[in-house]
Protein backbone atom coordinates (compact mmCIF):
# COMPACT_ATOMS: atom_id res chain seq x y z
CA UNK A 1 0.00 0.00 0.00
CA UNK A 2 1.14 3.57 -0.66
CA UNK A 3 1.16 6.01 2.16
CA UNK A 4 -1.71 7.85 0.42
CA UNK A 5 -5.22 6.61 1.26
CA UNK A 6 -6.14 3.78 -1.12
CA UNK A 7 -8.70 4.62 -3.80
CA UNK A 8 -10.92 1.76 -2.73
CA UNK A 9 -10.95 0.72 0.86
CA UNK A 10 -13.29 -1.97 2.14
CA UNK A 11 -12.92 -2.81 5.82
CA UNK A 12 -14.72 -5.54 7.66
CA UNK A 13 -17.56 -5.62 5.19
CA UNK A 14 -20.54 -7.94 5.90
CA UNK A 15 -23.52 -8.48 3.71
CA UNK A 16 -26.67 -10.57 3.97
CA UNK A 17 -29.83 -10.79 1.91
CA UNK A 18 -32.36 -11.64 4.58
CA UNK A 19 -31.15 -14.96 5.92
CA UNK A 20 -28.56 -15.51 3.21
CA UNK A 21 -25.15 -14.47 4.46
CA UNK A 22 -23.13 -13.59 1.42
CA UNK A 23 -20.13 -11.67 2.63
CA UNK A 24 -18.29 -11.97 5.90
CA UNK A 25 -15.47 -9.77 7.07
CA UNK A 26 -14.21 -8.75 3.64
CA UNK A 27 -11.24 -6.41 3.42
CA UNK A 28 -10.12 -4.95 0.11
CA UNK A 29 -7.66 -2.17 -0.57
CA UNK A 30 -7.02 -0.92 -4.08
CA UNK A 31 -4.39 1.74 -4.59
CA UNK A 32 -4.75 4.53 -7.09
CA UNK A 33 -3.99 3.25 -10.61
CA UNK A 34 -3.93 -0.35 -9.52
CA UNK A 35 -5.57 -3.21 -11.45
CA UNK A 36 -7.05 -5.72 -9.01
CA UNK A 37 -8.96 -8.88 -9.93
CA UNK A 38 -11.47 -10.59 -7.70
CA UNK A 39 -11.91 -14.29 -8.42
CA UNK A 40 -13.99 -16.89 -6.65
CA UNK A 41 -16.42 -19.71 -7.23
CA UNK A 42 -19.75 -19.00 -8.89
CA UNK A 43 -22.31 -17.47 -6.57
CA UNK A 44 -19.83 -16.67 -3.83
CA UNK A 45 -20.62 -12.96 -3.75
CA UNK A 46 -18.24 -11.30 -6.17
CA UNK A 47 -20.97 -9.29 -7.88
CA UNK A 48 -22.43 -8.43 -4.51
CA UNK A 49 -19.10 -7.06 -3.31
CA UNK A 50 -18.61 -5.05 -6.49
CA UNK A 51 -22.13 -3.65 -6.27
CA UNK A 52 -21.47 -2.51 -2.74
CA UNK A 53 -18.32 -0.72 -3.79
CA UNK A 54 -20.18 0.70 -6.78
CA UNK A 55 -22.93 2.09 -4.55
CA UNK A 56 -25.79 -0.06 -5.85
CA UNK A 57 -26.08 -2.12 -2.70
CA UNK A 58 -25.51 -1.10 0.88
CA UNK A 59 -23.38 -3.31 3.08
CA UNK A 60 -25.00 -4.75 6.19
CA UNK A 61 -22.00 -3.80 8.27
CA UNK A 62 -18.53 -2.40 7.68
CA UNK A 63 -16.83 0.54 6.12
CA UNK A 64 -16.61 1.10 2.38
CA UNK A 65 -14.76 4.19 1.22
CA UNK A 66 -13.90 5.14 -2.35
CA UNK A 67 -11.74 8.09 -3.30
CA UNK A 68 -11.69 9.34 0.22
CA UNK A 69 -15.39 9.31 1.01
CA UNK A 70 -17.92 6.78 2.24
CA UNK A 71 -19.84 5.34 -0.68
CA UNK A 72 -23.33 6.77 -0.97
CA UNK A 73 -24.70 5.68 -4.31
CA UNK A 74 -23.20 5.46 -7.76
CA UNK A 75 -21.00 8.22 -9.12
CA UNK A 76 -20.35 9.22 -12.74
CA UNK A 77 -16.64 9.32 -11.97
CA UNK A 78 -16.68 5.60 -11.27
CA UNK A 79 -18.28 3.56 -13.99
CA UNK A 80 -19.62 0.06 -13.67
CA UNK A 81 -19.56 -2.54 -16.44
CA UNK A 82 -22.37 -4.93 -15.64
CA UNK A 83 -22.35 -8.69 -15.78
CA UNK A 84 -25.77 -8.61 -17.42
CA UNK A 85 -25.27 -6.41 -20.41
CA UNK A 86 -26.33 -2.89 -19.55
CA UNK A 87 -26.26 -1.44 -23.03
CA UNK A 88 -29.48 0.46 -23.76
CA UNK A 89 -31.23 -1.40 -26.56
CA UNK A 90 -33.18 1.67 -27.67
CA UNK A 91 -30.05 3.66 -28.49
CA UNK A 92 -27.62 3.14 -31.34
CA UNK A 93 -24.05 2.10 -30.70
CA UNK A 94 -22.96 5.69 -31.04
CA UNK A 95 -25.64 7.01 -28.69
CA UNK A 96 -24.81 4.34 -26.16
CA UNK A 97 -21.13 5.09 -26.20
CA UNK A 98 -21.86 8.80 -25.87
CA UNK A 99 -24.42 8.29 -23.10
CA UNK A 100 -22.11 9.43 -20.32
CA UNK A 101 -20.91 12.46 -22.27
CA UNK A 102 -24.06 14.48 -22.73
CA UNK A 103 -22.75 17.36 -20.67
CA UNK A 104 -19.67 17.69 -22.86
CA UNK A 105 -19.48 19.94 -25.92
CA UNK A 106 -20.74 18.26 -29.05
CA UNK A 107 -17.39 18.27 -30.81
CA UNK A 108 -15.59 16.65 -27.91
CA UNK A 109 -18.34 14.11 -27.52
CA UNK A 110 -18.20 13.18 -31.16
CA UNK A 111 -14.45 12.89 -30.96
CA UNK A 112 -14.45 10.62 -27.93
CA UNK A 113 -17.25 8.45 -29.29
CA UNK A 114 -15.37 7.98 -32.49
CA UNK A 115 -12.18 7.11 -30.68
CA UNK A 116 -13.67 4.48 -28.41
CA UNK A 117 -15.85 3.05 -31.14
CA UNK A 118 -12.70 2.44 -33.12
CA UNK A 119 -10.89 1.05 -30.12
CA UNK A 120 -13.45 -1.72 -29.57
CA UNK A 121 -13.53 -2.42 -33.29
CA UNK A 122 -17.05 -1.23 -33.95
CA UNK A 123 -16.30 1.40 -36.58
CA UNK A 124 -18.99 1.02 -39.24
CA UNK A 125 -21.57 -0.05 -36.66
CA UNK A 126 -22.14 3.44 -35.20
CA UNK A 127 -25.76 3.59 -36.36
CA UNK A 128 -26.57 -0.01 -35.53
CA UNK A 129 -28.86 -0.94 -32.70
CA UNK A 130 -27.68 -3.43 -30.09
CA UNK A 131 -30.11 -6.09 -31.28
CA UNK A 132 -28.31 -6.07 -34.62
CA UNK A 133 -25.04 -6.95 -32.93
CA UNK A 134 -23.74 -10.23 -31.58
CA UNK A 135 -23.47 -10.71 -27.84
CA UNK A 136 -19.77 -10.04 -28.00
CA UNK A 137 -20.19 -6.84 -29.93
CA UNK A 138 -22.78 -5.66 -27.41
CA UNK A 139 -20.34 -6.30 -24.62
CA UNK A 140 -17.77 -4.20 -26.44
CA UNK A 141 -20.27 -1.35 -26.68
CA UNK A 142 -20.68 -1.39 -22.95
CA UNK A 143 -16.94 -1.38 -22.40
CA UNK A 144 -16.52 1.50 -24.83
CA UNK A 145 -19.28 3.40 -23.05
CA UNK A 146 -17.54 2.95 -19.73
CA UNK A 147 -14.17 3.98 -21.11
CA UNK A 148 -15.55 6.95 -23.02
CA UNK A 149 -17.04 8.39 -19.85
CA UNK A 150 -13.47 8.96 -18.74
CA UNK A 151 -14.07 7.69 -15.25
CA UNK A 152 -11.24 7.57 -12.76
CA UNK A 153 -12.35 4.19 -11.50
CA UNK A 154 -13.75 1.23 -13.42
CA UNK A 155 -15.72 -1.59 -11.82
CA UNK A 156 -15.93 -4.48 -14.21
CA UNK A 157 -18.12 -7.50 -13.49
CA UNK A 158 -17.07 -10.31 -15.83
CA UNK A 159 -17.11 -7.93 -18.77
CA UNK A 160 -15.67 -10.45 -21.20
CA UNK A 161 -17.99 -13.31 -20.31
CA UNK A 162 -20.06 -13.09 -23.47
CA UNK A 163 -17.13 -12.71 -25.84
CA UNK A 164 -15.74 -15.48 -27.92
CA UNK A 165 -12.28 -16.65 -27.17
CA UNK A 166 -10.35 -14.66 -29.72
CA UNK A 167 -12.21 -11.44 -29.05
CA UNK A 168 -11.70 -11.98 -25.35
CA UNK A 169 -7.94 -12.15 -25.81
CA UNK A 170 -8.00 -9.02 -27.91
CA UNK A 171 -10.15 -7.11 -25.40
CA UNK A 172 -7.88 -8.05 -22.54
CA UNK A 173 -4.91 -6.65 -24.40
CA UNK A 174 -6.85 -3.48 -25.21
CA UNK A 175 -7.97 -3.01 -21.65
CA UNK A 176 -4.41 -3.29 -20.40
CA UNK A 177 -3.29 -0.75 -22.96
CA UNK A 178 -5.97 1.74 -21.96
CA UNK A 179 -5.35 1.20 -18.29
CA UNK A 180 -1.66 1.82 -18.75
CA UNK A 181 -2.26 4.91 -20.89
CA UNK A 182 -5.01 6.50 -18.82
CA UNK A 183 -4.00 5.53 -15.31
CA UNK A 184 -7.35 4.23 -14.24
CA UNK A 185 -8.04 2.28 -11.11
CA UNK A 186 -9.73 -0.99 -11.99
CA UNK A 187 -11.52 -3.53 -9.81
CA UNK A 188 -12.29 -6.47 -12.05
CA UNK A 189 -14.43 -9.50 -11.21
CA UNK A 190 -14.01 -12.75 -13.09
CA UNK A 191 -14.26 -16.45 -12.48
CA UNK A 192 -11.68 -17.15 -15.14
CA UNK A 193 -8.39 -17.66 -13.38
CA UNK A 194 -6.37 -17.38 -16.58
CA UNK A 195 -7.96 -14.05 -17.21
CA UNK A 196 -7.19 -12.77 -13.73
CA UNK A 197 -3.57 -13.80 -14.05
CA UNK A 198 -3.27 -12.21 -17.47
CA UNK A 199 -4.68 -8.90 -16.28
CA UNK A 200 -4.12 -8.09 -12.64
CA UNK A 201 -1.46 -6.53 -10.48
CA UNK A 202 -3.01 -8.45 -7.64
CA UNK A 203 -5.60 -11.23 -7.60
CA UNK A 204 -7.90 -11.49 -4.58
CA UNK A 205 -9.27 -14.99 -4.20
CA UNK A 206 -12.63 -15.28 -2.49
CA UNK A 207 -13.91 -18.35 -0.68
CA UNK A 208 -17.30 -19.88 -1.26
CA UNK A 209 -20.33 -18.35 0.48
CA UNK A 210 -20.32 -16.74 3.01
CA UNK A 211 -17.31 -15.30 1.24
CA UNK A 212 -14.27 -13.59 2.50
CA UNK A 213 -10.90 -12.95 0.89
CA UNK A 214 -8.99 -16.24 1.22
CA UNK A 215 -5.71 -14.98 -0.08
CA UNK A 216 -4.08 -12.39 -2.25
CA UNK A 217 -1.72 -13.30 -5.08
CA UNK A 218 0.57 -10.59 -6.37
CA UNK A 219 1.50 -10.96 -10.04
CA UNK A 220 4.72 -9.19 -10.72
CA UNK A 221 5.07 -9.97 -14.40
CA UNK A 222 5.76 -7.48 -17.17
CA UNK A 223 3.02 -6.78 -19.67
CA UNK A 224 2.15 -8.01 -22.25
CA UNK A 225 2.43 -11.27 -20.41
CA UNK A 226 3.78 -14.43 -21.91
CA UNK A 227 1.26 -17.17 -21.26
CA UNK A 228 3.97 -19.82 -21.36
CA UNK A 229 6.24 -18.06 -18.86
CA UNK A 230 6.97 -20.02 -15.68
CA UNK A 231 5.93 -17.07 -13.49
CA UNK A 232 2.59 -16.95 -15.22
CA UNK A 233 2.01 -20.66 -14.90
CA UNK A 234 3.06 -20.62 -11.27
CA UNK A 235 0.67 -17.83 -10.33
CA UNK A 236 -2.13 -19.59 -12.14
CA UNK A 237 -1.48 -22.91 -10.45
CA UNK A 238 -1.22 -21.17 -7.10
CA UNK A 239 -4.72 -19.73 -7.49
CA UNK A 240 -6.02 -23.09 -8.66
CA UNK A 241 -4.72 -24.68 -5.54
CA UNK A 242 -6.14 -21.96 -3.29
CA UNK A 243 -9.50 -22.70 -4.83
CA UNK A 244 -9.06 -26.41 -4.28
CA UNK A 245 -8.56 -27.55 -7.85
CA UNK A 246 -5.60 -28.48 -9.96
CA UNK A 247 -5.36 -27.24 -13.49
CA UNK A 248 -5.96 -30.67 -14.94
CA UNK A 249 -9.48 -30.48 -13.61
CA UNK A 250 -9.14 -33.19 -11.01
CA UNK A 251 -11.48 -31.94 -8.34
CA UNK A 252 -9.96 -31.60 -4.94
CA UNK A 253 -13.36 -30.88 -3.49
CA UNK A 254 -16.97 -30.83 -4.53
CA UNK A 255 -17.97 -28.02 -6.73
Amino acid at each position, binding site marked *: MDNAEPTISVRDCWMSFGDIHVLERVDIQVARGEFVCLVGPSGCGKSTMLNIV*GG*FLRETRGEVRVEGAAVD*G*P*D*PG*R*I*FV*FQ*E*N*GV*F*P*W*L*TVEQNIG*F*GLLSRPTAERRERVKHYTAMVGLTGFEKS*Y*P*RELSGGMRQRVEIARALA*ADARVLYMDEPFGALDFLTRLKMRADLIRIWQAEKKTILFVTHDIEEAVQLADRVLVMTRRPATIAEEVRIDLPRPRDLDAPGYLAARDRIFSIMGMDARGGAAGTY
Partner: protein
Amino acid sequence: MNRRVLHFILPLITAAVALGAWHAAVRMSGSDIFPTPLEVLRGLGELVQRGLLLKYIVASLFRVSWGFGLAVLVGVPLGLVLGWFRPAYAALNPFIQILRPISPIAWIPVAILWFGVKDTAPVFLIFLASVFPITVSAMAAVQNMQQVYLRAAQNFGLSGFPLFRRVIFPAALPQVITGIRIALGVAWLVVVAAEMIAVDSGLGYLIIDARNAGKRYDLVVAGMVMIGLIGLLLDLLVRRLEKFDEVRWGYGQR
Protein backbone atom coordinates in the same frame (compact mmCIF):
# COMPACT_ATOMS: atom_id res chain seq x y z
CA MET B 1 -42.80 -17.41 -53.84
CA ASN B 2 -44.32 -20.56 -52.44
CA ARG B 3 -45.14 -18.80 -49.18
CA ARG B 4 -46.66 -15.92 -51.11
CA VAL B 5 -48.98 -18.32 -52.84
CA LEU B 6 -49.87 -19.86 -49.51
CA HIS B 7 -50.70 -16.55 -47.93
CA PHE B 8 -52.76 -15.23 -50.81
CA ILE B 9 -54.40 -18.26 -52.31
CA LEU B 10 -55.32 -20.14 -49.16
CA PRO B 11 -57.28 -17.30 -47.52
CA LEU B 12 -59.10 -16.79 -50.81
CA ILE B 13 -60.04 -20.45 -50.90
CA THR B 14 -61.22 -20.34 -47.30
CA ALA B 15 -63.18 -17.19 -48.05
CA ALA B 16 -64.85 -18.83 -51.01
CA VAL B 17 -65.70 -21.93 -49.00
CA ALA B 18 -66.95 -19.90 -46.04
CA LEU B 19 -69.11 -17.65 -48.20
CA GLY B 20 -70.45 -20.62 -50.09
CA ALA B 21 -71.31 -22.45 -46.89
CA TRP B 22 -72.93 -19.33 -45.50
CA HIS B 23 -75.01 -18.90 -48.61
CA ALA B 24 -76.04 -22.54 -48.65
CA ALA B 25 -76.87 -22.53 -44.96
CA VAL B 26 -79.13 -19.50 -45.31
CA ARG B 27 -80.83 -20.99 -48.36
CA MET B 28 -81.33 -24.32 -46.70
CA SER B 29 -82.56 -22.95 -43.40
CA GLY B 30 -85.51 -21.58 -45.32
CA SER B 31 -85.48 -18.55 -43.06
CA ASP B 32 -85.08 -15.23 -44.77
CA ILE B 33 -84.16 -13.31 -41.63
CA PHE B 34 -80.49 -13.95 -41.90
CA PRO B 35 -78.98 -12.46 -45.05
CA THR B 36 -76.90 -14.25 -47.65
CA PRO B 37 -73.45 -12.86 -48.47
CA LEU B 38 -74.92 -11.37 -51.61
CA GLU B 39 -77.58 -9.54 -49.69
CA VAL B 40 -74.93 -8.19 -47.36
CA LEU B 41 -72.98 -6.97 -50.35
CA ARG B 42 -76.11 -5.32 -51.69
CA GLY B 43 -76.67 -3.75 -48.27
CA LEU B 44 -73.16 -2.38 -48.36
CA GLY B 45 -73.81 -1.08 -51.85
CA GLU B 46 -76.90 0.67 -50.61
CA LEU B 47 -74.92 2.29 -47.82
CA VAL B 48 -72.30 3.45 -50.26
CA GLN B 49 -74.94 4.85 -52.57
CA ARG B 50 -76.58 6.78 -49.79
CA GLY B 51 -73.16 8.12 -48.87
CA LEU B 52 -73.51 6.61 -45.41
CA LEU B 53 -70.74 4.03 -45.30
CA LEU B 54 -67.86 6.46 -45.40
CA LYS B 55 -69.67 8.83 -43.07
CA TYR B 56 -70.27 6.07 -40.53
CA ILE B 57 -66.73 4.79 -40.74
CA VAL B 58 -65.37 8.28 -40.21
CA ALA B 59 -67.76 8.88 -37.32
CA SER B 60 -66.74 5.69 -35.55
CA LEU B 61 -63.07 6.28 -36.18
CA PHE B 62 -63.50 9.80 -34.89
CA ARG B 63 -65.01 8.63 -31.60
CA VAL B 64 -62.48 5.87 -31.22
CA SER B 65 -59.64 8.29 -31.94
CA TRP B 66 -60.80 10.63 -29.23
CA GLY B 67 -61.57 8.02 -26.61
CA PHE B 68 -58.49 6.04 -27.35
CA GLY B 69 -56.29 9.11 -27.68
CA LEU B 70 -57.40 10.35 -24.29
CA ALA B 71 -56.83 6.89 -22.87
CA VAL B 72 -53.26 6.95 -24.15
CA LEU B 73 -52.70 10.45 -22.79
CA VAL B 74 -54.01 9.46 -19.38
CA GLY B 75 -53.06 5.79 -19.22
CA VAL B 76 -49.43 5.92 -20.23
CA PRO B 77 -48.26 8.56 -17.72
CA LEU B 78 -50.51 7.14 -15.02
CA GLY B 79 -49.20 3.64 -15.61
CA LEU B 80 -45.58 4.76 -15.68
CA VAL B 81 -46.00 6.66 -12.43
CA LEU B 82 -47.83 3.80 -10.74
CA GLY B 83 -45.17 1.40 -11.91
CA TRP B 84 -42.46 3.60 -10.49
CA PHE B 85 -43.89 4.68 -7.13
CA ARG B 86 -44.67 1.63 -5.05
CA PRO B 87 -47.06 3.41 -2.65
CA ALA B 88 -49.08 4.87 -5.51
CA TYR B 89 -49.27 1.39 -6.94
CA ALA B 90 -50.36 -0.10 -3.64
CA ALA B 91 -52.99 2.58 -3.22
CA LEU B 92 -54.53 2.54 -6.65
CA ASN B 93 -53.95 -0.84 -8.24
CA PRO B 94 -56.82 -2.64 -6.46
CA PHE B 95 -59.28 -0.09 -7.82
CA ILE B 96 -57.96 -0.32 -11.31
CA GLN B 97 -58.36 -4.07 -11.10
CA ILE B 98 -61.93 -3.73 -9.87
CA LEU B 99 -62.93 -1.17 -12.48
CA ARG B 100 -61.34 -3.15 -15.27
CA PRO B 101 -63.84 -6.01 -15.59
CA ILE B 102 -66.88 -3.72 -15.68
CA SER B 103 -68.50 -3.77 -19.07
CA PRO B 104 -68.88 -0.49 -20.96
CA ILE B 105 -72.57 -1.33 -21.28
CA ALA B 106 -72.88 -1.09 -17.53
CA TRP B 107 -71.33 2.35 -17.71
CA ILE B 108 -73.91 3.64 -20.19
CA PRO B 109 -76.27 5.14 -17.58
CA VAL B 110 -73.34 6.79 -15.86
CA ALA B 111 -72.06 8.12 -19.16
CA ILE B 112 -75.43 9.64 -20.01
CA LEU B 113 -75.76 11.10 -16.55
CA TRP B 114 -72.35 12.72 -16.74
CA PHE B 115 -72.02 13.59 -20.38
CA GLY B 116 -75.49 13.62 -21.80
CA VAL B 117 -76.08 12.42 -25.30
CA LYS B 118 -73.47 14.27 -27.27
CA ASP B 119 -70.44 12.56 -28.70
CA THR B 120 -68.83 12.94 -25.31
CA ALA B 121 -70.63 9.97 -23.83
CA PRO B 122 -69.49 7.36 -26.37
CA VAL B 123 -66.02 8.87 -26.27
CA PHE B 124 -66.08 8.43 -22.51
CA LEU B 125 -67.10 4.77 -22.84
CA ILE B 126 -64.34 4.11 -25.35
CA PHE B 127 -61.92 5.92 -23.09
CA LEU B 128 -62.97 3.80 -20.13
CA ALA B 129 -62.63 0.55 -22.00
CA SER B 130 -59.16 1.33 -23.30
CA VAL B 131 -57.58 3.24 -20.44
CA PHE B 132 -57.26 0.20 -18.19
CA PRO B 133 -55.29 -2.07 -20.52
CA ILE B 134 -52.98 0.85 -21.29
CA THR B 135 -52.44 1.75 -17.64
CA VAL B 136 -51.89 -1.82 -16.60
CA SER B 137 -49.38 -2.51 -19.33
CA ALA B 138 -47.44 0.69 -18.67
CA MET B 139 -47.40 -0.21 -14.98
CA ALA B 140 -46.13 -3.69 -15.66
CA ALA B 141 -43.60 -2.37 -18.14
CA VAL B 142 -41.91 -0.21 -15.53
CA GLN B 143 -42.09 -2.91 -12.89
CA ASN B 144 -40.57 -5.51 -15.20
CA MET B 145 -37.87 -3.18 -16.46
CA GLN B 146 -34.46 -4.72 -16.27
CA GLN B 147 -32.71 -3.42 -13.19
CA VAL B 148 -29.45 -3.13 -15.05
CA TYR B 149 -30.73 -0.25 -17.21
CA LEU B 150 -31.68 1.66 -14.14
CA ARG B 151 -28.34 1.05 -12.52
CA ALA B 152 -26.44 2.04 -15.63
CA ALA B 153 -28.44 5.26 -15.85
CA GLN B 154 -27.86 6.07 -12.20
CA ASN B 155 -24.21 5.33 -12.67
CA PHE B 156 -24.04 8.01 -15.32
CA GLY B 157 -25.58 10.43 -12.87
CA LEU B 158 -29.16 10.48 -14.15
CA SER B 159 -32.03 11.02 -11.75
CA GLY B 160 -35.41 12.71 -11.62
CA PHE B 161 -37.05 13.66 -14.88
CA PRO B 162 -34.05 13.01 -17.15
CA LEU B 163 -33.88 9.49 -15.74
CA PHE B 164 -37.56 9.07 -16.56
CA ARG B 165 -37.29 10.49 -20.05
CA ARG B 166 -34.02 8.95 -21.12
CA VAL B 167 -34.24 5.52 -19.53
CA ILE B 168 -37.46 4.51 -17.80
CA PHE B 169 -39.70 5.64 -20.61
CA PRO B 170 -37.72 4.11 -23.49
CA ALA B 171 -37.19 0.92 -21.50
CA ALA B 172 -40.93 0.59 -20.92
CA LEU B 173 -41.92 1.62 -24.41
CA PRO B 174 -42.11 -1.78 -26.14
CA GLN B 175 -44.49 -3.17 -23.56
CA VAL B 176 -46.42 0.09 -23.48
CA ILE B 177 -46.91 -0.17 -27.21
CA THR B 178 -48.15 -3.73 -26.86
CA GLY B 179 -50.62 -2.45 -24.30
CA ILE B 180 -51.65 0.30 -26.68
CA ARG B 181 -52.20 -2.23 -29.40
CA ILE B 182 -54.43 -4.36 -27.21
CA ALA B 183 -56.26 -1.27 -26.03
CA LEU B 184 -56.95 -0.14 -29.57
CA GLY B 185 -58.50 -3.52 -30.23
CA VAL B 186 -60.67 -3.10 -27.16
CA ALA B 187 -61.57 0.49 -28.09
CA TRP B 188 -62.70 -0.66 -31.48
CA LEU B 189 -64.54 -3.60 -29.97
CA VAL B 190 -66.67 -1.39 -27.74
CA VAL B 191 -67.61 1.02 -30.49
CA VAL B 192 -70.89 -0.88 -30.87
CA ALA B 193 -71.73 -0.60 -27.19
CA ALA B 194 -70.65 3.04 -27.12
CA GLU B 195 -72.81 3.93 -30.05
CA MET B 196 -75.86 2.51 -28.31
CA ILE B 197 -75.98 5.91 -26.68
CA ALA B 198 -78.08 8.33 -28.65
CA VAL B 199 -75.86 9.07 -31.59
CA ASP B 200 -76.89 9.06 -35.20
CA SER B 201 -73.84 7.86 -37.05
CA GLY B 202 -71.11 5.29 -36.80
CA LEU B 203 -70.78 1.61 -37.56
CA GLY B 204 -72.04 0.67 -34.11
CA TYR B 205 -75.04 2.90 -34.68
CA LEU B 206 -75.49 1.23 -38.04
CA ILE B 207 -75.78 -2.13 -36.35
CA ILE B 208 -78.07 -0.94 -33.60
CA ASP B 209 -80.17 1.09 -36.00
CA ALA B 210 -80.42 -1.83 -38.38
CA ARG B 211 -81.52 -4.05 -35.53
CA ASN B 212 -84.22 -1.53 -34.74
CA ALA B 213 -85.15 -1.26 -38.37
CA GLY B 214 -87.32 -4.27 -38.78
CA LYS B 215 -85.75 -6.85 -41.02
CA ARG B 216 -82.49 -5.22 -42.05
CA TYR B 217 -80.07 -7.89 -40.90
CA ASP B 218 -78.17 -7.43 -44.12
CA LEU B 219 -77.10 -4.09 -42.69
CA VAL B 220 -76.33 -5.63 -39.31
CA VAL B 221 -73.99 -8.09 -40.94
CA ALA B 222 -72.61 -5.40 -43.23
CA GLY B 223 -71.77 -3.39 -40.12
CA MET B 224 -70.12 -6.43 -38.54
CA VAL B 225 -68.04 -7.08 -41.64
CA MET B 226 -66.90 -3.47 -41.83
CA ILE B 227 -66.00 -3.46 -38.15
CA GLY B 228 -64.05 -6.66 -38.60
CA LEU B 229 -62.14 -5.38 -41.61
CA ILE B 230 -61.35 -2.01 -40.08
CA GLY B 231 -60.36 -3.69 -36.82
CA LEU B 232 -57.91 -5.81 -38.77
CA LEU B 233 -56.53 -2.74 -40.52
CA LEU B 234 -56.15 -0.81 -37.27
CA ASP B 235 -54.27 -3.71 -35.76
CA LEU B 236 -51.94 -3.93 -38.73
CA LEU B 237 -51.41 -0.19 -38.43
CA VAL B 238 -50.44 -0.21 -34.76
CA ARG B 239 -48.26 -3.19 -35.36
CA ARG B 240 -46.10 -0.87 -37.43
CA LEU B 241 -45.29 0.97 -34.21
CA GLU B 242 -43.56 -2.18 -33.07
CA LYS B 243 -41.23 -1.99 -36.04
CA PHE B 244 -39.48 1.19 -34.96
CA ASP B 245 -35.83 0.81 -34.13
CA GLU B 246 -36.28 2.28 -30.67
CA VAL B 247 -38.61 -0.49 -29.58
CA ARG B 248 -37.92 -3.47 -31.80
CA TRP B 249 -35.55 -4.92 -29.23
CA GLY B 250 -38.52 -5.58 -26.98
CA TYR B 251 -40.27 -8.06 -29.23
CA GLY B 252 -37.69 -10.63 -30.40
CA GLN B 253 -38.45 -14.30 -30.26
CA ARG B 254 -38.24 -15.23 -26.65
